[in-house]
């Protein structure tokens, strides 16, 4: 698999977890989510408009997040996404699975385990 494709596949697998995680503490708008992913991953992960929003819409469709148009003083109208109670449960579940998955993978790929 070419590196670019690999990146895409990784993103697909983990994107939902990333978004749900970022919404755990507070509601955020799409651009903010994008920027946070980019900054916190040190530029390794980058979401564009066409990948982020379809994911957000799907999460909303499944009832994990809720989008709401909010108008704050001195700011443009924006759509803020927040976690629903169901989303919180899913996040906890996914986080647990991720940890187990990473640990399992690490046990295989880390040199000290060889």
């Amino acid at each position, binding site marked *: 698999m070419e590196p670019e494709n690999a990146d895409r596949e990784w993103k697909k697998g983990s994107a939902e977890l990333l978004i749900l995680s970022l919404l755990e503490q507070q509601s955020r708008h799409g*651009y903010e989510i994008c920027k946070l992913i980019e900054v916190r991953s040190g530029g390794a992960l980058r979401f564009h408009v066409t990948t982020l929003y379809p994911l957000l819409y799907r999460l909303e469709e499944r009832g994990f997040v809720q989008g709401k148009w909010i108008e704050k003083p001195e700011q443009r109208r924006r759509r803020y996404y927040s976690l629903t109670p169901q989303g919180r449960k899913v996040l906890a579940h996914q986080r647990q699975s991720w940890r187990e998955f990473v640990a399992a993978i690490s046990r295989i790929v880390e040199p000290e385990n060889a």
Partner: protein
Amino acid sequence: MPDWKREIRNRLTSLQIEPAREAGIIEEFAEHLEDRYQELLSGGVDETAARKIVMRELESAEFLPDALPARERAPRPEPVPQGETSSGNPFADFGRDLRYGLRALCKTPLFTFVAVLTLALGIGANTTVFTIINSLLLHPLPVTEPSRLVAVCGTQAKGSKQAGGLLPLSYADFQDYASRQTAFSGMSAFTPILAMTLERATGPQRVFGELVTGSYFEALGISPAAGRFFSRDETAVGASAPVAVISYNAWKGKFGGAGDVVGHTLEINNVAVTVIGVAPPGFLGVSAIFGPDLWLPSALCEQLFPAEFHNALTDRSKTVFHVVARLKAGVARSQAQTSLEPLAAALRNTYPEADEARTVTVRPITDELYWGAGGGSSIVLSSVVLLVIVALVLAIACSNVASLLLARAAARRHEIAVRLAVGASRGRLVRQSLTESILLSLLSCAAGLGIGYAGCRLLWSFSPPEVAQNLLEPKLDQTVFTLAFLVSLVTAFAFGLMPALRSSKADVLDALKEDTRGAGRGRRAVSFSNLVLVGQIAFSFVSLVTAALFLRGVQRAYNMDPGFQTQHLAVFMMNPGQTGYGEARTKDFYRTIQERVSTLPGVASASWAYNMPFWASASRAISIERREPRKKSETITTIVNTVDTNYFETMAIPVVRGRVFTDADRDGTLPAAVINQELAEKYWPGREALGHRFLLAGDKTPRQVIGIVRTTNYTTLGEKAQPCVYLPLRQNFSNGMTLYVRSKADPGGILAGVQAKIRRFDPNVEVSDVRTGPKMIGQVLWAPRIAVALLGVFGSLALALASVGLYGVMAYSVNRRRREIGLRMALGASRGRVLGHVLRNGLTLVWIGVGVGLGASLLLGRALSRMLFGISSTDLISLAGASLVLILVAFVACYFPARAAARVDPMVALRDI
């Protein structure tokens, strides 16, 4: 600031998201892009670069479709049939198919428009032709049980076929047949249509009338639209109160549809007649084409036409009555014929002088209906030719729409494969496709009926306005609607079935694996459309060549020499006898008018003649004195024309030998005649005809040939030579004559002057049928001109449709080969070479089509050569002209796809791989 919203909206259009949701998505995306743009700007990137980066990010992945939740796209279900199986209720299924079909058509308005327009033109052309055929051939007589009507004609007892003439009967003979026959439930006689003068407050007006015997309307089985028909007393000879029945069109037109027209008194040919009824609409008498304005009892004939019908009710040699009869139920035409033969034999014995060698024949009524129009068979032939042409035009339209559907099906192949994969049956898919085709064809049917109606109106607008009310009026009736509907259904299957079967055959796995952009018809499908295309081009070529041949024929006919001059000719028809003038006064009228008109400025000479140019036909038998009588089967009939002095000079007909009529040829002197060369050669081959005497049928005294003139055209242009006898007016009086005027310059300039002169001399005489030579030539060529117009229109239509087909196939093939072309260009092929390559591919098809068409048009041209006024079927100008037009149009149709191919960006095309 870049218009992000527009960029996003453009990309969302094809997804057809519910509008409110779409607006939300657009706003949210635009916010995002704007934030990103501002971020780049603040990072020191310039505006253009920033915009480019943002746009690239927008393009960076497959746009929404894959990822967008299903709910967003749900409001508009796909028009392709879904995977569900039949609901078990065929009507519900059909309704659902119909809804899908309608949505599919609305979704692709351009496709729908082009397909409907294409089919509508095809259906419209068929409707036009069928409407005419329906009125002319299928329903020519609006009477009860027309199949039981027959015509009874007189004929020579032996060899009637060679003598060729089906003759009218005399009134007295008709009465004998009518009173003794047993085969018919009704039998009636009528004269040909006669021009009469109707006196009105505004002055005299020409009308057409028919004299009929008492049971005419009863025998035909029609009911009046108003009033009643003739009673027995009213039609008896010597009836005290003359009456008339007027036609529906005359009532609506000439009498303004007045409610009180029944009971109205009209002055016809100086006789006061009372209108007692109005014939039903569409009734033209026993004629399919031209009908009279009014019907009068035959008993009035001598009162109305003292000269022409003198003794017509008693003299058995005056055969002027056509006979129509209604067979009794269960009696066949042949039985009727057998039953009449003894009656004919009895008449021959009783009246040997008049009825010698005469018998009667019972003919189909169609012989009478198309009398004067070349007979039923030539109308049937022309109709069949026209039907074949329009059917081919429709076939072209169908194959084009089939191509469009195929191309569309190719684009949908992926989706159809998905439906098949989730369990839709093939039959279900085919049915859905066909429903869509039926929907298309029904839309086209409605539009086609509109085009057909307009087509009929347009064709009929060419008919001469002065007789428009008397002409058959084609109507879109139930039969036409039914046929158009059936044709549309057949059409739907013709163009819809193949694409439906082909598209539903998609191999599920292949299609799913394949990129939709690469999906398309296989080589076989393309070569099949190539074959169809070659056929279309060949047909267009044949139509164009035929149209060109007719056009050239008509052009030549305009320059044909009819044997007399037409460029400086004007004619004026008059009937002083119908104004009530006696013989002496009428003769005086003729003499004075000739003298006065001759001296008008601009007039070179003037004369009188009985026949109108191109209106004569051979009608009288001729026998030569002191000569073994010819066999009856060899009887020669001749045209007879009564002319005044100066006639041959006015018409510029050269005198071959002898002399022409002078003032000396008058009553009391030797009966003289001038004959044409054809008659001279036929009767006196290799001998001098001058001085010989002959007898015209019905005449008592023989006439002497005093001159021989050149043979001219009498019935139509370029006709076969016909014998003609000219009689001097001063020995052969007639109530009505036509004034022939030869002008010094354009005849149009003298029309008003001549009419004013006549009116000043006698305001009571109506001048009708004023025509100039060139106008008469135009009227004679009416039928071939219509043929040129129809063939031209249908030929152009065929060419236009074939060009659209050519364009479609070329564009499709270029699109399919984009990658190949891209690769060629990437490997160094120049744009010019690609252009040439694609053009060559398209034009090869055109050449093959032209080749096939050329062969076919040579064959067809040979069959048509009789109607081409001497233009050869291999006429180079027609063939070259048609080829040039076709190749030019085909070139344009190929050029645009070829140019598109040459503009393929190698990178873009290759990226698609």
